[in-house]
């Protein structure tokens, strides 16, 4: 807390996790999504995609390591698998790297499948880390879980298609079709998430930040790429450059979404007075919950 900041009643933006934390969700989501997408790519391209995926995950973990207060005690993060999703994420990270590296080295279908499953688990843990953050209304909303998973897979598939195209390979029509479906799902999850926040109540500041990215995220990040990719599937190859741009837009939109949710929309709970003290002959007054969209009880 800023030492000059008076204690506030209204929700204010949390100051414990900043852009470095958002990079963990960006790198982890894209990396694990890429690992999942790579499992469906041709064998000859798996190694490059898998190594790229691990680089993304490592990048995210590096930044979260840079954010913690006592980095040389980081190993303590594995002590609480019973209830902590952060512990679970860190425990999955070890086998994820080992299995994905082994899969990249050997090309074994079993290891490739195992790496994809571990990637999915890591991604699920990341989504649950946010949901377990009870002090941040925009994170604890259960609808954030499918949104984070959908965007991770979309980013991974988008990056896989773009990377394959840039290196002179063609992604399968099947992978492109998968990305189209996942982008549509991501947009639906985004709408569901915002509806749920509005319904259950959230700090006005958080709702305003999320509303401000709605149009660019949906139009440039989801529906624009969907239209372009749908057009690209029959042309397959001819429209490659445009498809790459669409994929990059889809990936960038996912990063923008996560940066916004983690580093800009993370208003805390603030405080509320569901009942006001009765003093002397003063009139009874309704409770208050300043800074919230819904002035609900509590």
């Amino acid at each position, binding site marked *: *807390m*800023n*030492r*000059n*900041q*008076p*204690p*506030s*009643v209204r929700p204010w933006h*949390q100051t*414990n*996790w900043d852009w470095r934390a958002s990079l963990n969700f960006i790198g982890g989501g894209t990396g694990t999504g890429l690992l999942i997408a790579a499992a469906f790519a041709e064998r000859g391209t798996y190694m490059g995609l898998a190594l790229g995926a691990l680089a993304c995950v490592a990048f995210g973990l590096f930044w*979260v390591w840079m*954010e*913690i*207060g*006592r*980095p040389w*005690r*980081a190993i*303590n*993060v*594995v*002590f*609480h698998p019973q*209830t*902590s*999703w*952060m*512990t679970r994420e*860190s425990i999955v990270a070890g086998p994820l790297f080992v299995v994905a590296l082994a899969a990249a080295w050997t090309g074994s279908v079993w290891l490739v499948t195992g790496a994809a499953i571990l990637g999915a688990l890591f991604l699920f843990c990341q989504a649950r*880390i946010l949901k*377990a*953050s*009870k*002090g*941040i209304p925009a*994170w604890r909303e259960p609808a954030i879980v499918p949104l984070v998973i959908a965007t991770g897979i979309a980013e991974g598939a988008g990056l896989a298609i773009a990377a394959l195209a840039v290196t002179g390979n063609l992604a399968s029509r099947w992978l492109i079709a998968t990305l189209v479906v996942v982008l549509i799902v991501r947009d639906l999850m985004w709408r569901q998430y915002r509806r749920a926040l509005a319904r259950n109540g959230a700090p006005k500041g958080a709702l305003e930040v999320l509303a401000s990215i709605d149009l660019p995220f949906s139009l440039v990040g989801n529906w624009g790429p969907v239209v372009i990719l749908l057009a690209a599937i029959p042309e397959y190859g001819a429209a490659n450059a445009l498809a790459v741009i669409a994929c990059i837009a889809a990936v960038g939109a996912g990063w923008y979404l996560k940066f916004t949710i983690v580093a800009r929309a*993370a208003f*805390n*709970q603030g*405080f*509320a*007075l*569901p*009942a*006001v*003290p*009765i*003093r002397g002959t*003063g*009139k009874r*007054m309704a409770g*208050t919950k*300043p800074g919230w969209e819904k002035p609900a*009880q*509590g």
Partner: protein
Amino acid sequence: MTRWAMSIDLRACVGCQTCTTSCRHANATPPGVQWRKVLDVEQGEFPDVKRTFVPVGCMHCADPPCMHVCPSTATKQRPDGIVTIDYDLCIGCGYCAVACPYQARHIVHERDFAYGDGPTRSEDARFDEKRMSVATKCTWCVDRIDDGLAKGLTPGVDPEATPACVNSCITNAYTFGNLDDPESNVSKKVAGTEWFRMHEELGTDPHIFYVVDDK
């Protein structure tokens, strides 16, 4: 069984912040870190305006989200309900701080001083390196409670065994005691008044009761 709890009579609190000051004195928290702070809530429009002072801090929840998310097991709950932090285990990840709906946790990464660029003699003497870059919060002066109990004293009754904020309150707004003992100060207060608990709808079962009226 023992389950420590606190009640704060909002009718009595005048917002003097003596509790804040006594907490800072008792626990040597650095500038900007208030384990016990007092909110000033203003409602209504002139001339029908109400002002309420609300002391807040760690609610020592029965179901503490900070403990569940803590990846290092640094945050624990004692059998008497007090939520503690082991500074030797904490990695300062801040996950507990975003999980706490009461903004009760603080992480300080750099030393800060009340006056000028250097520490006062008191700040120097009481500086604790262990508290740097880890999560800290109100402990309900657990050392005083434990020491007092060892001496046969009763927390909430004997000042030596009672949290500093409770002792210091000039209007006697605070009450502290064992909620499982129907004869304790806090049990009697809770039984005889109307009260609410902060953000009760989140299911954390907080152990500070805010008294607003008689029954």
